[in-house]
């Protein structure tokens, strides 16, 4: 499946999670610094959240 993280396409396999997408994009360390992942409707998603083909996510720095 293909998803987008910060507008960058990532090819992942079924079963991979938000955490895997961040590792693949080399962005996981941003989570430890306080960033969060949001879906295309603006909802925060957990790191173990399931991904679905075609979805778009954004990593945002939060307070």
């Amino acid at each position: 499946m293909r998803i987008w993280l910060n507008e960058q396409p990532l090819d992942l396999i079924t079963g991979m999670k938000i955490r895997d997408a961040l590792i693949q994009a080399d962005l996981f360390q941003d989570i430890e610094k306080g960033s969060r992942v949001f879906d295309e409707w603006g909802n925060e998603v957990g790191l173990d959240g399931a991904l679905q083909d075609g979805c778009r996510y954004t990593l945002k720095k939060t307070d």
Partner: protein
Amino acid sequence: MKQILIFILNIIFSIFVLQHVCSAQSVDLRILYLNDFHGFAAPHQTAGNQEKLGGIAFLAAEANRLRQDRPALLLAAGDMLQGNPWANLFEGKSTIEIMNRMEFSAMTTGNHEFDYGQDVLQKRIHDARFPFLAANIQGLTGIQSYVIKEIAGLKVAIIGLTTEDTPVTTHPKNVKGLKFLPATETAKRTINELRNQSDLVIVLSHLGLPADVQLAKTVTGIDLIVGGHSHTRVEKPMKIEDTLIVQAWEHGKVLGVLDLTIQDKKILHYDGRLSLIKPDKNKVAPLILEIVNGYQKQTDAILGEVMGIALVDLQGKNSRFQETNLGNLIADILREETKADLAILNGGGIRSDILKGDIRMKDLFAVLPFTNHPVILKVSGQDIKDIFEYGVSDPDQTGGRFPQVSGITVSFNPAHPAGRKVTGIKIGNHDLLMDAYYTLVTNDFLAAGGDGYTIFKKIMENKDKDSAQSSRVILFDSGRDIRDMVSDYIKGEKMISAKVEGRIQKEK
């Protein structure tokens, strides 16, 4: 004339009576919901967050308080039984005991509910005093397609739906003989059956929010989707067409609350929110806390049990710099369990030593603190060469990429230029063949390209012509993590020894 007047009065009276009968009074109903609990019974901290959230005893107190105001249903949208030692060590029994005490109304069957196998799942269904739902799974005794709950004079139909990806995200034996039907078609068919028997139709979904949105757009007749699987923090209900969609994040960090006013089978008014759960000793459900603590005590005892004896010091801390005997042991177990040709793990994932003497489960948690599962890939000889060129190329060897291996011998010269450091590779006793294919087992972290192993990313992206799936992935998630494989091995063998054998040879 008098007769005409009586006739007209009769008609007026009949219309008045009919109107009164047809427009039933509005009813207030509260839906409380939870999803993707994964056995996180105690309050816990998450990455990048200083504050502890969750704790099922605190969530239960909040649910009890909210149930006093108006009639309420308490629903769980799947993945409740697996994911944390507190639940895993009891194969989900601890979670069911809590859910029974909290008087859950229904639960949908999440993909991770299958991770202990079908026999265990059936025991958990038997233990539960609420229905396990999944209209799109055929072949598992005990699972219901739907349930109709009668509450406050309403008939509320609750239909369960489970992700169709389940067969490829758990070990094939866990779903053997089961059929996972398309969720949308199943929903349409079941709603047609139920719409006339109910005042409100709820889909209790473990499909993930994007699929829930799609479901709401394509299937009419769903009043509410209570979702899970994507671990989404839906703070306010979403309205897609005529359907409301809610989801309560993950791990019991929030309790979902949705207030509905219903009249004539229609939602007249809704108001929803997520109630953040924080530990507060004044807002705790004592009976739930008692169950949590009871299982925690047993968990601590199990983690403290002696599983085996280390006959030598098992050194793991140096795994990010050099071959270690503990790295070899773990890689050997992984290769043996999965019957792969070779195993590779990142040295950075092995965090501690086990000293000569008793081995306890808690020692293993210190060695392997990350919950990783094995991934089996089909790789070419050239892929293996590329993997090890990268693996031995870290100049200061601090990044965690240094490989710990089994089934393979690699020699390298750090003085050689990048891309030509590897001087020899043997698979078993045979030289590596560049155009041959081998089965390689690693962990999900490396498979995702962790520690900079982009070569694994490329392997995973190699697709079949006719499928969106990678042609190189033999098994992605067996539902059993690497730590469990190692602990089972230690429990079986009892006397544990391992040595450094020159699997990774550094030429000078």
